[in-house]
């Protein structure tokens, strides 16, 4: 609406204008005019506020959410998914049985959610952690005793990591039991195997970071095995014959030295916080993308009868 002072003679809309011709009773005229104008402003504000009662009609809302969330309209329900970057990996509609968690156990989704939880808590932990021999262990003590909710933060990161391994394994177990790795999803199964290995490596590289006895010896045992790599390890079959020593073999490359020390801590930290999460994210993108491209989740599919087996295509 256009607020207009009733005394405005200029005819210009919207402007609070002074009247150049009027010179008498200036004080009273100004006061009255101000009161009238403020009343008009109030009316205008009230009027506009009414429009804000429905936030979905505001410009701000419409700029963020392109689609009206009118529930009864099926087209909107589809668009709610399709026009949202966080939901767009979903199709608009799925088979009515595919939402049964008795079939999927929800393990893949939970694994991804745990990855997000781990990223979030991990970034917070990084604010308090220095990957150096002098600082690392003290930082953990600091986290546990002084940082507000630091202990909770560290515990959550630890247990979410363990939980993620459990859910990854159970996800794989379900995929085997339902035969979901079969055509056309063979390649996605392979991507999944890589993700499984990356999950284990993420957990393992994090194990060293507190720089305590537990992590130190676990990583010592783990990397000692690398010494025995055939051909690339100083103690592996055909390693010494190929010129491998403790100072140039694959274990040296993993640790950045011949013992688990400050370089190993730094390498572990970078693999844990940057290297492996980056690679895993790429594989995850492919994994989720392929679920859609391979026709959504595999079932629950209608059962096939033995009498219906076709001969193999040549």
């Amino acid at each position, binding site marked *: 609406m256009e607020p207009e002072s009733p005394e405005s003679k200029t005819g210009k809309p919207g402007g609070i204008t002074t009247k150049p011709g009027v010179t008498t009773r200036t004080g009273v005229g100004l006061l009255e005019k101000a009161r009238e104008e403020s009343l008009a402003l109030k009316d205008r504000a009230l009027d506009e506020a009414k429009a804000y009662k429905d936030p979905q009609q505001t410009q701000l809302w419409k700029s963020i959410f392109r689609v009206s969330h009118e529930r009864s309209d099926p087209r909107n*329900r589809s668009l709610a*998914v399709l026009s949202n970057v966080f939901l767009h990996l979903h199709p608009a509609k799925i088979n009515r049985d595919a939402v049964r968690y008795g079939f999927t156990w929800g393990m893949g989704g939970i694994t991804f959610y745990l990855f997000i939880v781990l990223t979030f808590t991990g970034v917070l932990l990084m604010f308090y952690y220095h990957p150096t021999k002098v600082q690392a262990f003290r930082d953990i003590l600091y986290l546990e005793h002084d940082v507000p909710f630091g202990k909770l933060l560290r515990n959550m990161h630890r247990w979410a990591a363990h*939980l993620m391994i459990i859910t990854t394994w*159970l996800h794989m177990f379900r995929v085997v039991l339902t035969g979901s790795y079969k055509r056309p999803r063979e390649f996605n199964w392979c991507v999944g195997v890589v993700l499984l290995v990356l999950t284990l490596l993420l957990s393992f590289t994090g194990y060293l970071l507190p720089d305590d*006895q537990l992590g130190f010896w676990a990583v010592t045992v783990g990397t000692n095995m690398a010494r025995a790599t055939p051909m690339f390890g100083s103690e592996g079959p055909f390693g010494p014959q190929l010129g491998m020593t403790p100072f140039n073999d694959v274990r040296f490359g993993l640790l950045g030295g011949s013992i688990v020390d400050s370089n190993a801590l730094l390498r572990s930290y970078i693999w844990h916080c940057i290297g492996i999460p980056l690679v895993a994210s790429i594989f995850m993108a492919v994994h989720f993308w392929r679920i859609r491209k391979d026709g959504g989740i595999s079932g629950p599919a209608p059962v*096939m009868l033995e009498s219906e087996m076709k001969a193999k295509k040549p």
Partner: protein
Amino acid sequence: MDWHQLWKITAAPDNIPIVAMLFLVPFFTWLGLKQARENDRLIEQLERDPQLAKTHHRKTLPWRPGWARELHVWPFLIRIEFLAAVIVTVILFVWSITLDAPLEEPANPNLTMNPSKAPWYFLGLQEMLVYFDPWIAGVVMPSLIMVGLMVFPYVDSNPFGNGYYTIKQRRFALGMFGIGWLTWIALIIIGTFIRGPGWIWFWPGQTWDHNAVVFDKNRDLHDFVGITSMPAKIIFGAIVVGLFYVLAGLLLHKLMTWNGFERKLLARTSLLQYVMFQFFAISVLIALPVKIALRLALNIKYVWVTPWFNV
């Protein structure tokens, strides 16, 4: 019976996940097998009644004419995902508030932890070190397991059970995966609950004795037949390993031709698929339990000794 020792192992915060697995794995196995049994019953019923098979919707799940085949993801899937996220978050919070992540003394290269154990999910690999040299247990086996897993969908030529639980139609594939899965879990359980100081076998409830010494007389297989010269050892070992592959291959072949249905499936299998499957199944699924049994029951360390590597 040392309950305190058992409690100390079970209640170690880092062992909680594997204790949880002791319940989770049977529960989810039951959940999967229950649906498999229901599907198998339906399959039998439809095989008997071809007329019904033509009209049946072929799921054990309810279905009525007129029901929409598809649901909107928003809100029917999103709400489940949201609920799952909330539940997992609550579980994590409760777990993190009640149980602290372990923190030992600062790292000290001069003070070896005994036993010095890997995190529970790697204890399978660490336990394998008992049965194989590090290059097999630490490098070759993990690689074979990884590649073997990736090969799995390509060698499984069985078209049945794609997207539904069934045992009847996939006995062989599920059996093979089951062997590997159980061996892996068993190795982890041995590594967690049984191995004590010096990686010595302590039964659950037996007190860990840090001064315990075990006088195992480990022998190599060739000692049983009295071979002493190196060339003879090499040849003998190669023959034994070769024989093992042949026998295990015959056993697997026998299973793959068990009945008419299995033979039909085998007929669909290409030569390459067959050979690949045999290789990975023998090298991992059968070799691992066999070597474990040889070591634990007969104290046999190596079956094939050469100057370069030992198996």
